[in-house]
């Protein structure tokens, strides 16, 4: 026996319990507190201790130690700051540039032609490879990494915003605004952008999650944040050579990184259920 469409959607909504979202928000809050206060309380975790090399988790070092005797727990906590910073900054950069390009492309035909051609071209280069190549020519450092991760994400966001704006501009209140003689900038800022904010916030969560993963991937491949700047990615990378002897170096930051990204994605999904105009249209019908 199958359900009617409306019942199916009701079931879908109840299938995502509030519990998952609450847990995600809690996890996110913990990580952000860690990112803000962790390094102040515990230090950077760069202190070397040759006597404590590759020690398993214990009361002294909760997550064990790495090959240089550094405390993995302290490094994971201080890594949270850089990983979260890369995630948030990338989301801001991508939304500002990609969002603006998308809104303009959705509203002006000639911008559309140029921007979408460029987007097609950039999207034909696998994102992580483009990011690796950018880091290698621009040099290491947090700012470079944020730029390198942003570039491949911008076309995707521009595309999404364009499609959202295309559907908004067909709505009656835009026609009304045009007919009462509102200027184009005013229509864009007062009517189009506010209605696109919902989807933009959904996209922000996905970009943030993807950026945290990309930073980790870049660091893992050895082209990410410099070794003395701990991030989840380069803590994991430092355990690469020792994963048979000391799996904890990868395991703990790996699990925390996964929980963080998972939480952001769950929150993003919830936001999308609320804001996606396509889902809303279906619910209304």
């Amino acid at each position: 026996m199958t359900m009617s469409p409306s019942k199916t959607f009701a079931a879908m909504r109840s299938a995502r319990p509030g519990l998952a979202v609450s847990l995600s928000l809690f996890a996110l809050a913990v990580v952000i507190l860690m990112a803000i206060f962790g390094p102040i309380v515990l230090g950077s975790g760069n202190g070397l201790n040759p006597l404590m090399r590759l020690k398993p988790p214990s009361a002294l070092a909760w997550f064990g130690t790495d090959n240089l005797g550094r405390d993995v727990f302290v490094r994971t906590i201080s890594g949270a700051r850089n990983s979260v910073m890369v995630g948030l900054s990338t989301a801001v950069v991508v939304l500002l540039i990609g969002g603006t390009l998308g809104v303009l492309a959705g509203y002006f035909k000639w911008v559309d032609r140029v921007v979408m051609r460029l987007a097609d071209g950039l999207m034909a280069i696998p994102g992580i490879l483009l990011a690796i190549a950018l880091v290698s020519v621009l040099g290491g450092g947090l700012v470079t990494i944020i730029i390198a991760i942003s570039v491949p994400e911008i076309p995707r966001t521009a595309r999404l915003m364009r499609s959202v704006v295309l559907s908004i501009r067909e709505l009656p209140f835009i026609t009304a605004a045009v007919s009462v003689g509102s200027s184009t900038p005013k229509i864009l800022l007062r009517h189009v952008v506010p209605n696109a904010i919902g989807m933009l916030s959904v996209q922000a969560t996905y970009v943030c999650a993807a950026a945290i993963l990309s930073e980790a991937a870049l660091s893992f491949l050895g082209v990410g944040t410099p070794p003395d700047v701990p991030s989840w990615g380069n803590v994991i990378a430092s355990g690469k050579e020792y994963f048979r002897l000391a799996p904890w170096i990868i395991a703990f930051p790996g699990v925390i990184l996964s929980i963080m990204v998972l939480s952001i994605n769950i929150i993003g999904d919830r936001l999308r259920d609320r804001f996606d105009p396509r889902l809303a249209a279906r619910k209304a019908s």
Partner: protein
Amino acid sequence: MSNFVVRRLLSVIPIALIVLVTVFLLLHIGPGDPAALIAGENATPAQIEQIRERLFLDRPLLEQLFLYLSHVVQLDLGQSVYSGLPVLSLIAQRIEPTAVLAVSTLLLSVLIAVPMGVWAAWRAGSTVDTALIVASVLGFSVPVFVIGYVLVDVFALRAGWLPVQGYKPLSSGLWNCFRSIILPSVTLSFLFSALVARITRATMIEVLAEDYIRTARAKGAGNRRILVVHALKNIGVPVVTVVGTSFAALLGGVVITESVFNIPGMGRLTVDAILTRDYPVVQGVLIVFSFVLITVNLLVDLSYALFDPRVRQ
């Protein structure tokens, strides 16, 4: 139909051109002198000068671009600064492991994810459906390298069933190659099947809500007939689309997976080239990966014409 095919074929040209210009410009957007960047920190001025001449870096930018494009068109991707070998032959040496990994992941993911997605959509709201949603969010939240190490730990180090790392080429026998690629492709399949399953489920839910499904039901068609005859026929296009759009993620995942499992493929070639500042190789790999991606998306679009008669008009 032929009109659609011709138009789609022509649309590849600007995309390919943008890729090539981007790849060419990569070397020139950095803060320093590209020749010095390639030569490395310990190079003498004479060496830098030599590189500048060999790569035409002393010419005006537009002329360089033109030279670069004309070489690429003749399938000349330059020589490795490091080994002096042609980039194309370096890539050719490394293409097999990457292709085997990508194809096996693709097959595994589609075989798992499409039936799972259909099942979840058919039972939308049930425990199976919830489980699939959770699993798919997990699939693209857990980094490929974390999954990789967990699998290595369980199936290679503890159980001893499979090799820990490394790649056995096809020439060493199908069985050996298969054994060496199981863990890497299962690892990468977590990510890829998550993407495919999610889209399959969403599309299938949409298809099941269509009028023609209701009509079929009204005419007394059984569940199996509705699923096989009416619904599955219509998920071809979206599933092929998602395979196309997530192919970029697959190629990115290949690069990381090769690093986890020590597979000497194109991903490793890229990472090694970056670490040794071998930019012609980096550019060459970017071009080859991008052209694979462009071709896959072209094939995906052309396949629409097969699946959906409306596209042909």
